[in-house]
């Protein structure tokens, strides 16, 4: 036989139970809602930072590699400099050096700074007045825009086959590779 449940007093406790249950549910939703929102914000920040880093990486990859290799890899920097040197037109330099106006002078030394492209020419002169002639001859024989300038003059002592120890004048000119 089934039990008979009859009560003339309406169950009041259910109101309190439902009320507490609703409060608990609201509290749980609020806690997890705040957590989800916080995680969403963190995700957006991480994605923005990742996009910035990706852009920086692409920009870095688009730069000339020689500039990067100079500071980070000496061997690679040397190779890049050598490649750069081979790309220059050395005939223009030789045209200036081998100009007939410089036959009375003696080219003692030629130096090239691969990094900056600066050329150093050292001539041995017979007199001080010859220095201006050399400067004019180099600039005349070079391409337009090339500028040779006298950096310094110095007296040099060197052995001579005929007269023993003699004194000569050496001049150093600087120019840039074309």
């Amino acid at each position, binding site marked *: *036989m089934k039990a*008979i*449940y*009859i*009560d*003339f007093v309406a169950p009041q406790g259910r109101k309190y139970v439902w009320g507490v249950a609703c409060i608990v549910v609201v509290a749980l939703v609020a806690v997890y809602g705040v957590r989800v929102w916080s995680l969403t914000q963190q995700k957006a920040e991480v994605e923005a930072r990742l996009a910035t880093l990706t852009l920086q990486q692409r920009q870095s990859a688009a730069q000339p590699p020689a500039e990067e290799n100079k500071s980070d890899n000496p061997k690679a920097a040397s190779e890049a400099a050598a490649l750069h040197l081979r790309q220059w037109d050395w005939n223009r330099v030789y045209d200036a050096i081998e100009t007939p106006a410089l036959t009375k002078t003696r080219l003692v030394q030629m130096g090239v700074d691969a990094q900056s492209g600066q050329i150093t020419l050292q001539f041995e002169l017979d007199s001080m007045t010859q220095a201006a002639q050399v400067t004019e001859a180099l600039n005349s024989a070079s391409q337009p825009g090339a500028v040779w300038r006298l950096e310094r003059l110095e007296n040099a002592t060197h052995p001579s086959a005929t007269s023993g120890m003699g004194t000569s004048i050496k001049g150093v000119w600087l120019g840039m590779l074309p």
Partner: protein
Amino acid sequence: MWLGLFERVHVYLGTGLVLVQRSGVSVSKLQPPSTLPLTDVLRWVDEQLDRAHAKPWLLSVHVSAALCAPSVFVSPTGIQRSELSALAQASAARAWGLGPNQEDAVVCCHGAEQRGLTASFLKGVHVAITEWASGHRGRLLELVPLWALATQCQHVRSTAVSAMALLEPDALTWIRQDGHRETQAACWYGALSVADAKALLAEKGGGDWPPSLSAMGFAAESTAEPWPAGPKEWRRHWSRLP
């Protein structure tokens, strides 16, 4: 914590009999004069137990069938809940001997699963009990007819049992459920003996206590040993009828 501010009290109300069980105290049996109106009886109970100086009561009130009788009515299928309540109220008023326009003089409550069965108070009785319970800052937790409480025990809920008879000091109640969940009920009033109960139930097919009938008694006096298969409330007052 808040329970410490109240006292849990169980009360049984019958005709000329009030049983009060307070926490930590043995059952108090009070037998007010039967000529007193219920409101006076309840006020007398308060005086006897010095309720004015006690903690506020949280009351569970069980009432005799003499105060809250069962009644049955035909419940057509497809009927709406509001119509069911009106039908139950009309049936209860008729069971109390009231006229067709006096449905408001009864207060009904019907079980959720037993269509066609209702318990009803006369309105004055219901008001007297509820007002008394809320007196002295008390609170009424439940108001249940004892015959409904009896159906909730293990012995009655057995599948072999299809009917229950409850002999109280002032009433005999009989309830039967058939296989189609249709419910039958009957109630006889007065101080009846077991032999009287058997004779009255004989016309219902239960006079010889068939196995399908759970016949139990509720006594004013407590027994030495509680009946294990009886209801948990009022444990020492239940017994199986011989």
